[in-house]
């Protein structure tokens, strides 16, 4: 009798485990969902609410250069370099920080995937990818082509 009870418990545990796995991934075999694609494959990895990500500005680089976030997350840049830097949205100058002295920070809440650069050192670039929607990093020009 004890053995049967034990086997039953193991069976229940296995069922529960299988169910919870299915809920978490939300994406079993493609057959189950026909041709629908899961747009946010990383969603199950996120915590319940928005989180804060950090980008270090060090040795003339944004670290990490590409940051994956979820819509509504906060990104904080810290200037850990010895020179001034700033953070400016690349394509349309949608947002920008003031020049950041060493140790200074800038933060923004991100809703769209965006590339950004340092307007003081125009070759320094980075991008934030929201919900896996990748974009090109060199899609904008940070120099006005005004010649002489």
């Amino acid at each position, binding site marked *: 009798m004890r053995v049967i009870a034990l086997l039953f418990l193991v069976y229940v545990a296995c069922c529960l485990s299988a169910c919870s796995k299915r809920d978490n991934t939300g994406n079993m075999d493609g057959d189950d969902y026909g041709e629908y694609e899961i747009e946010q494959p990383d969603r199950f990895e996120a915590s319940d609410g928005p989180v804060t990500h950090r980008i270090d500005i060090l*040795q*003339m*680089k944004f670290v990490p250069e590409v940051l994956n976030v979820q819509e509504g997350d906060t990104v904080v840049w810290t200037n850990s370099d*010895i*020179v*001034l830097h700033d953070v400016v949205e690349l394509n349309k100058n949608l947002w920008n920080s003031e020049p950041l002295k060493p140790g200074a920070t800038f933060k923004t809440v991100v809703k769209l995937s965006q590339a950004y650069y340092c*307007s*003081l*050192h*125009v*070759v*320094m670039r980075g991008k934030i990818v929201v919900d896996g929607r990748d974009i090109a990093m060199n899609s904008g020009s940070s*120099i*006005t*082509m*005004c*010649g*002489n």
Partner: protein
Amino acid sequence: MLAFVTKQAVFNQTDILKTKTVMKTIKRFASVLCLCICSLSVVSGQQNPKLTDAEVASVAVVANQIDIAYAEVAKERSKNADVLKFAETMISDHKAVLDQAGALVKKLGVTPQDNEVSKKLLADAEKTKKDLRAKSEKDFNKAYIDNEVAYHKAVIAAVEGLLIPEAENAELKALLQNVVPALRTHLGHAEMLQKTFK
């Protein structure tokens, strides 16, 4: 292996033909770079000049001061917003490096010592500033940015090939190593601007 080399050579040949103008420019800068490196060797009288840490510090300080001086000339002469912004960055960044260098030599109790390399750099810079000031308003931006590209290439070569190997104090060596990414970024920035003055 031979086939690969030949393929490379053919590719390079085609590439050179396609980008004749670009290559001309690169050749000109390369000769300027060689002149700068050679002058560093010639003035010292040997292939690997022996510099004390005080002399290394002096060369580093002078190299930063020279680029600030070039930027000051640009602020006087240029009306191009991108060039002016670049010049402001050069002033701000090289001043930050000078502050770091100043704090370090104070901490180490070292007084930067003039030497043949730093004197030659200063003399060359005086001539370059004179040449830049003599440019017409139309030609100034290109001349300034061309010089910035050549100068940063020469300084990177000197820091990596001379100053870092010569520096004995670990903190002085580390400071010089930390400056290289900034110099490379300045070079990339100048090369990006250079493309707008073709």
